[in-house]
């Protein structure tokens, strides 16, 4: 009722055969990109499987020291869809999001168990380079965090650190990314100005432009609109709707109405790190299977 049917999205914009071939190629290429040392197992089995899941976890657990923050999470995140992660504070939703591109690696005492597959490759395998992984799975944070550089340099940053500024037309790449983030028309005449001069909503879209400039596949968003006014937040929501044409979006939000408005699937985390229910967003908000989810989303607790 509230959200469009996920199956309606992007109707047949690509022929299915092409899509599968693309996925196969992308997987092979990805293995090269993510792995900086020798690959120890063959990938034919994974590569041959037609799979619309881009990120899948099995028995994923996260501990911070003695505290367990995630309990055996099994989830399959669909490609080119918006997946919302909701739940009360301390339910592990940000921990889950950050585990997807190994941002938790940087936290002392953090231990990960189980498996998290990106196109069938466990990203916690020793041969995976987290920096390479984060180029494929970018992240946008709650508070807009542009670098104290020009708008242009903010967007070009990722390509420059990858040493790609010689290979690609940097001007074109910057324009593409800014257009992709629905910011181009507002900044095209002031690309030299500092990113910090922009409004909060523009800064957040600049951060999205910076993230998509390196051509990731998945965008992780951790409460990307909670620091923005409603109009700026609406623009980000509209933008997310466009971004899933090219990317897969996983968004953590405290705003249940936002999850209902913009996501195709919703995962509800409760009880200090348990994934309680994961289903079509319309199902979650019209008729959730789990009573605890019903109680949470109707505000009976939490």
């Amino acid at each position, binding site marked *: 009722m509230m959200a469009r049917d996920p199956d309606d999205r992007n109707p047949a914009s690509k022929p299915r055969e092409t899509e599968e071939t693309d996925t196969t190629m992308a997987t092979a290429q990805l293995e090269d990109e993510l792995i900086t040392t020798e690959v120890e197992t063959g990938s034919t089995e994974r590569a041959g499987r037609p799979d619309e899941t881009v990120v899948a976890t099995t028995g994923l657990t996260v501990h911070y020291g003695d505290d367990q923050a995630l309990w055996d999470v099994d989830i399959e995140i669909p490609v080119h869809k918006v997946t919302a992660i909701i739940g009360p504070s301390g339910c592990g939703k940000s921990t889950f999001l950050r585990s997807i591109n190994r941002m938790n690696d940087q936290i002392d005492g953090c231990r990960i168990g189980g498996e998290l597959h990106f196109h069938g490759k466990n990203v916690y395998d020793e041969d995976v380079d987290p920096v390479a992984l984060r180029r494929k799975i970018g992240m946008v944070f709650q508070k807009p965090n542009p670098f104290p550089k020009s708008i242009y340099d903010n967007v070009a940053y990722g390509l420059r650190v990858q040493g790609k500024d010689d290979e690609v037309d940097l001007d074109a790449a910057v324009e593409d990314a800014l257009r992709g983030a629905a910011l181009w028309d507002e900044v095209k005449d002031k690309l030299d100005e500092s990113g910090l001069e922009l409004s909060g909503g523009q800064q957040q879209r600049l951060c999205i432009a910076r993230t998509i400039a390196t051509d990731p596949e998945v965008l992780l968003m951790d409460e990307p609109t909670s620091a923005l006014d409603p109009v700026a937040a609406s623009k980000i929501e509209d933008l997310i709707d466009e971004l899933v044409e090219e990317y897969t979006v996983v968004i953590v939000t405290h705003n249940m109405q936002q999850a209902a408005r913009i996501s195709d699937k919703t995962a509800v985390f409760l009880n200090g790190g348990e994934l309680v229910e994961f289903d079509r967003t319309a199902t979650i*908000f*019209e*008729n959730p299977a789990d009573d605890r*989810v019903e109680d949470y989303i109707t505000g009976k607790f*939490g």
Partner: protein
Amino acid sequence: MARQEYRRRLDKLRTDVCAMADLVLDRYDDALEAYETGNEELAQTVIEGDHDINEQYLDLEGNCVELLALQQPVAGDLRFIASSFKIVTDIERIGDLATNLAGYGVEDAEPLLPLEDVRDIGETAGTMVEDAIAVYETGKAEGTWEIAARDDDLDEACQNASERIVRELIANDPSTLTDTEIEVRLADVSRTLLLIRDIERVGDHAVNICARTLYMAENDDGLIY
């Protein structure tokens, strides 16, 4: 429990819908009595009282819209509000039908259908509404299918009553009647047929209430058609 004011308003909506249904059922009983006894004063009370019912209906509809707009209800709460929004329309229509019945009583000088037959189908329909509202009030689905199934019997009884009137009409030789008598006769027949149809419609509204209650309680649209 969080959102206490919101929960209080949901409880109040349920109470208000049931109160409106009680009022309409009282009016409906009065209408049947007025028809049966020819009590014009009582009939007039029912007819004039319809204005209050319409007011209540619009108030409750407004409350539902406001809850949707301000509280963004989801899941069971959403189904409760959406169902209540539909159910108040059914209750309001039953109120309209009660005014019709009261009006037939005022006009009807010579009932074509035995009064006990009218009372029978009238009470069957009224009890269906009463029972449907009682289930809605519990917030559960138990009884919805059973109450809805009673509508088949009511439909059959109404069908039989209508046929009986038409048969009698055919059996009468019009050549023995004056033009005025024929006119009166025809008016009586159409009023009585409308009376039967209106009672049958009350049963349909009871089924609608059951259908929305079932959806509300169990997300089951099996009775909605």
